[in-house]
């Protein structure tokens, strides 16, 4: 039996732990994860405000509760007592459905996050994880793509321009970075031999995948920031361009649900990063020398500590970096992250084959082949044919230079290359009160 088959059998054994909980225990676990998430979100919002304040030499919220810890809870209560606003142009059914659709997948993602090893809960031995199955990470991927619906539908249902632009923009952004994210998982699967999260944690007893597969780790870390719409990739909420993006028209608890979903997603991607690359709930090296470190309820501490390292990086990025421009952002996702992850997968596959087979002759050849193909491809892409043709086309097809504000009967923005023609202005100062002036302008 070779080591690969050996590890596969081990994975199967890990998975047999799941699906045996009595119903009451499942309910306790589910409610526990739900409550944990609510508390973690309230804590993270507070943490973000305090840390950003600290980075900006301010104090931040410190009034409600010790060190201001209850601030986010009170903000939530406040939102519940605000007036409900349904925009006239909104599609009421979808408008209400959208926050629900963004909140439910956010919670559901945590069903497969491993928080710890087997513990004894009310006399029953059970893993510290709601559930796990052979396609757990595929499930995460599916859930992530469902979360996008909440955003795109919120933008559409508001019946307003800024939310529509913001919703479309953020969903395009999320699907772009989801690819890089999905591709970065492949490396982990190659070495773990399973898609179940508990199996992946068990595969990292000797060495974290984050150290073994540094490029995958880096690609995932970048993609997770893009996927959660956080700074410096927070284009959907670019205040200077889109007001609030997709949630501009939302108020009260419906807004709170979007906020909640955003923060849960941030925690989710951090938790996946921990599970896949930093050994999950297993204690880091100096602590792991202590025998009891990986037993009982302690591992939940190591897990949360590792997860909050990522959360802190999220906050740090927000406090440090300016926002990307949309074209730069898309260019980075499509032209850097995706080819880089594909190239890395090819290299990894070859290395892994050497690992398993132990035959160098074929595989070394394949490796060289891959390298050559990629060099050629990069050279091909870098070359700048086509530019001349384009220039010629532009010279042959001049466009109208003067900007027509109502071209085609609609108010339109200036096209690229069109200029505003200065108009002679009438004196624009009118006698009378503000209200009278407004009446006059509207009437005229």
């Amino acid at each position: 039996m070779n080591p690969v088959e050996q590890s596969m059998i081990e994975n199967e054994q890990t998975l047999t732990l799941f699906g045996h909980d009595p119903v009451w225990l499942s309910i306790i676990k589910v409610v526990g994860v739900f409550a944990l998430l609510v508390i973690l979100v309230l804590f993270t919002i507070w943490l973000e405000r305090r840390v950003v304040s600290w980075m900006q030499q301010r104090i931040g919220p410190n009034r409600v509760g010790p060190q201001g810890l209850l601030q986010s809870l009170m903000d939530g209560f406040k939102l519940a007592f605000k007036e409900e606003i349904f925009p006239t142009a909104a599609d009421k059914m979808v408008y209400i459905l959208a926050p629900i659709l963004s909140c439910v997948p956010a919670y559901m993602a945590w069903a497969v996050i491993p928080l710890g090893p087997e513990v004894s809960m009310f006399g029953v031995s059970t893993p510290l994880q709601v559930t796990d199955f052979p396609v757990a990470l595929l499930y995460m991927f599916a859930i992530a793509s469902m979360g996008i619906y909440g955003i795109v539908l919120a933008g559409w249902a508001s019946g307003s321009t800024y939310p529509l632009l913001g919703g479309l923009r953020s969903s395009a952004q999320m699907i772009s970075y989801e690819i890089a994210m999905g591709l970065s998982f492949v490396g982990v699967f190659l070495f773990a031999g399973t898609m179940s999260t508990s199996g992946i944690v068990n595969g990292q007893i000797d060495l974290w995948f984050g150290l073994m597969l540094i490029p995958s780790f880096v690609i995932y870390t970048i993609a997770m920031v893009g996927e959660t719409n956080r700074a410096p990739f927070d284009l959907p909420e670019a205040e200077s361009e889109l007001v609030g993006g997709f949630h501009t028209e939302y108020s009260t608890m419906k807004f709170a649900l979007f906020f909640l979903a955003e923060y849960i997603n941030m925690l989710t991607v951090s938790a996946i990063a921990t599970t896949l690359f930093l050994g999950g709930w297993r204690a880091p090296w100096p602590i792991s020398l202590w025998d009891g470190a990986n037993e009982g309820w302690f591992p939940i501490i190591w897990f949360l500590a590792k997860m909050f390292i990522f959360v802190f990086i999220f906050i740090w990025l927000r406090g440090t970096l300016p926002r990307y421009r949309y074209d730069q952002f898309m260019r980075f996702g499509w032209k850097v992250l995706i080819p880089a992850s594909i190239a890395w997968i090819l290299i990894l596959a070859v290395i892994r084959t050497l690992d398993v087979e132990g035959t160098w002759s074929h595989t070394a050849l394949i490796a060289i082949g891959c390298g050559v193909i990629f060099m050629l491809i990069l050279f091909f892409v870098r070359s700048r044919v086509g530019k001349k043709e384009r220039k010629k086309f532009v010279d042959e097809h001049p466009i109208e230079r003067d900007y027509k504000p109502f071209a085609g009967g609609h108010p339109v923005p200036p096209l690229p290359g069109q200029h505003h023609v200065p108009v002679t202005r009438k004196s624009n100062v009118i006698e009378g009160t503000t209200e009278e002036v407004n009446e006059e302008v509207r009437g005229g």
Partner: protein
Amino acid sequence: MTPTPISAAPEAAVAMGGPFLFWVCAIIAVAGAVGMLVSRKAVHSALFVVMTMISIAVLYISLNAPFLGMVQVIVYTGAIMMLFVFVMMIVGVDASDSLVETLKGQRWLALGTAFAFAALLIIAISNGFGSIAPTGSIEAANAQYGGNVQGLAHLIFTRYVVAFEVTSALLIVAALGAMMLTFRERFAPKVSQEEMSIERFKRDKHPGNLPGAGTYARHNAVDTPALLPDGSVAHESVPNALIDRGSERAVNRADVDEVRTISEGFDYVDGDSVQLDEEEGQ
């Protein structure tokens, strides 16, 4: 406290829940399909299709095909329906379908196809009830290579290798089609940010930020010109497109006077100028 092992009771519960889950998912799936047909707005139709897809995915998972179930959600609801939603946004939010039939005899053709399809379904299902004996359970197939995913991988990469490679050809066709549909020659070569800033400093007398709209005004609307600290009206603060559309708002004489008075160090009370106290002024 020693953990006690759990009996296999939940499996029995799931086996009992099987038909229940089937009926729930089946009803949701059919309701989604009907909803897709009857809803007026295209986005509602898309949402109903999503509902159908997800309940079908749940059915797949309950039938011990978890990989297929997840892929159903990822590819169909996550990617293909998202493309539909994007197209609806691009085509127009309120655009409803035109009810004029452009194809001749479309109705009869559709009716004929529907009947043929129904006949096919009925024959297939009745055959399934009668003659075809099940060749093997999915549990056995899953167990053969150590799991659902491993079994699928084995089939894809050995027996169905041609189909797998042909899929990539299909993907090429899809991308080519999309490129052909969406290709647009640029109006002008793309200007970089660097070139734009050089151009701006060459052309404008005022290379910095323009004054923001609504400053010192009684409105903070973007169509109201700002008042400069000396009280004069800053027309540059209103976006050019709004000026060209004739949407720039007028400014009240009283506001201009007020700003000017304040900027000269006086307190403005009901149209009268009152000099500030020395202490208050500092």
